[in-house]
């Protein structure tokens, strides 16, 4: 077990290293460097740019740049953020918690709702309810997550929506939050979380439900379900104890694969709801031409994805005895 985790962590480090290398290549292969690209948008003088290039080592040969970049990375140094005038890592660290909270809440909605709907559909495949839910999940699956966010806002948000129920943007009520009781603060944060998390979670849940339905159908066709019925088990035990349980195996794989998709979604949702997380930070950084932040965010996201995959692998091993003992 320890060996498995160690091995997968090592592989994860290799993946992150590769991501960093790809990012390096992408940037250096592109014509010019951040400063030429800044071009006329920046009023900085030629001397300033040349000085900045020297400071950043951009005048060095490529391999020297690469090794320095990797060496810095190994020390956890992702460079400086131009726009915030502080280390990228620290700037990112400030944003990560908000994104993790949003992603976790969305993940919860995604899988709880998705598995429930998909399993219900799969066990009654072909029924009217199944057809109806299929239309619903297909539609939700096809909705751009940011548009769903806008539509939710249009219905539920303060000052915007028809129902005026929840705050539209931000992660807390500015100006008021500091004066709330701890419980009030929590409520305030949760109220802000609901819309973005639901937008992100619903789209995910639709995909999960489609997958879960197929997985359930797949399992129900298998011989051991017939065995379970033949020994006189209640239909509920057959469905929960055998069918659902086994159908969750492919869902765990989906769980591992959903992390990058989820993080993609946060970029869009955070922009819609002005959620102060990593995604919004990256988008702002692009317009501010703060390239170190973009690279840093890509690397940090890769780390999150790697950890997520490890989590999925561990879950899989916990549930499927056949893969235990196989490294």
């Amino acid at each position: 077990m320890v060996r498995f985790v160690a091995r997968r962590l090592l592989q994860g480090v290799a993946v992150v290293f590769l991501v960093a290398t790809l990012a390096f290549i992408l940037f250096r292969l592109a014509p010019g460097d951040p400063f030429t690209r800044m071009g006329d948008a920046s009023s900085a003088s030629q001397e300033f740019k040349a000085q900045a290039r020297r400071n950043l080592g951009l005048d060095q040969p490529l391999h020297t740049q690469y090794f320095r970049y990797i060496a810095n990375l190994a020390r956890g140094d992702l460079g400086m953020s131009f726009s915030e005038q502080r280390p990228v890592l620290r700037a990112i660290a400030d944003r990560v918690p908000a994104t993790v909270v949003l992603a976790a809440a969305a993940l919860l909605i995604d899988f709880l709702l998705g598995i429930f709907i998909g399993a219900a559909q799969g066990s009654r495949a072909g029924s009217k309810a199944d057809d109806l839910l299929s239309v619903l999940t297909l539609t939700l699956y096809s909705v751009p997550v940011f548009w769903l966010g806008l539509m939710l806002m249009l219905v539920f948000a303060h000052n915007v929506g028809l129902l005026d129920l929840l705050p539209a943007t931000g992660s807390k009520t500015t100006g008021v939050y500091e004066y709330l009781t701890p419980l009030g603060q929590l409520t305030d944060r949760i109220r802000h979380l609901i819309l973005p998390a639901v937008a992100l979670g619903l789209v995910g849940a639709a995909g999960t439900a489609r997958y879960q339905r197929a997985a359930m159908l797949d399992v129900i066709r298998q011989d051991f379900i017939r065995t379970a019925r033949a020994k006189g088990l209640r239909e509920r035990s057959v469905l929960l104890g055998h069918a659902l349980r086994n159908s969750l195996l492919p869902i765990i794989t989906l769980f591992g694969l959903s992390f990058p998709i989820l993080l993609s979604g946060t970029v869009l949702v955070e922009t819609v709801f002005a959620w102060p997380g990593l995604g919004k930070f990256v988008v702002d950084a692009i317009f501010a031409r703060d390239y170190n932040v973009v690279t840093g965010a890509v690397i940090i996201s890769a780390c999150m994805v790697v950890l997520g995959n490890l989590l999925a692998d561990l879950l899989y091993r916990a549930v499927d005895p056949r893969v235990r003992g196989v490294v």
Partner: protein
Amino acid sequence: MSETLLRLSRNRRWRYGIALLTVLGALAALAPLLAPYDPTAQLGLARQLLPPSAAHPFGTDIFGRDVLSRVIYGARISFVIALSAVLLSVIIGTSVGVAAGYGGRLLDGALMRTVDAALAVPRVLLLLLVLALWERVGVASLIIILGSTSWFGVSRIVRAEVLSVRERGYMEAAKSLGVGQRRILSHHLLPNITSPIIIAATLGMGQIVLIEAGLSFLGLGIQEPTASLGRMMQAGSALLVNAPWTSIFPGAIIVLTVIGFSLVGDGFRDTLDPRTA
């Protein structure tokens, strides 16, 4: 082949999907004929932000442009981008997948580790990384960017399929009959991996439509004044209270398009995938 078509036409999802895509595709293809206005024409101050009416079924935007016309042209761009980018990604993905699955351990390892790394980066972030280097992107460069960052999944599917087909009896049979490598590849391997590629490609088109819209929404894709659905929604998001139609309609068209691709993809999966048939 005709038998496959017959089975497809019996699949309800596939039929609905094809019908939906045909309508939307016709709309996109015939945009110049069908759009009531020039999508970039600003019709004057008096016609700014008009709610839906007989003259403007989808209303007008803040510059007084006809939203229906812009939606039709936007759909046209979405279609062009989705089809071309997926074509590109399928070509790259299939080549890489076949090379990895059939080209020996070393090549497989190198290619798949690279794909692992690429897949570890959330797709939108990856695109932001690439787009950060471009000032303004036109349709052509967007297609190249989207296509060249969308093949990772395809290559994995193809590789898995190649590895599985490699073990099938008929591959060994061909080998034992003295059939050469190249012929085995073209006559026995490739024809048997087309189904998953078709399925992945169709479902991929829906995803590209969504991603392209997302990028434009962030302000990084197609630039104004060209009509793009994502960009329209971005502009619309600022006017959510006053002019919701400017964001509702472009979104709805995207939803319909993606539903179409998903239905067709599901239909292909139901009929072509031996595991579910």
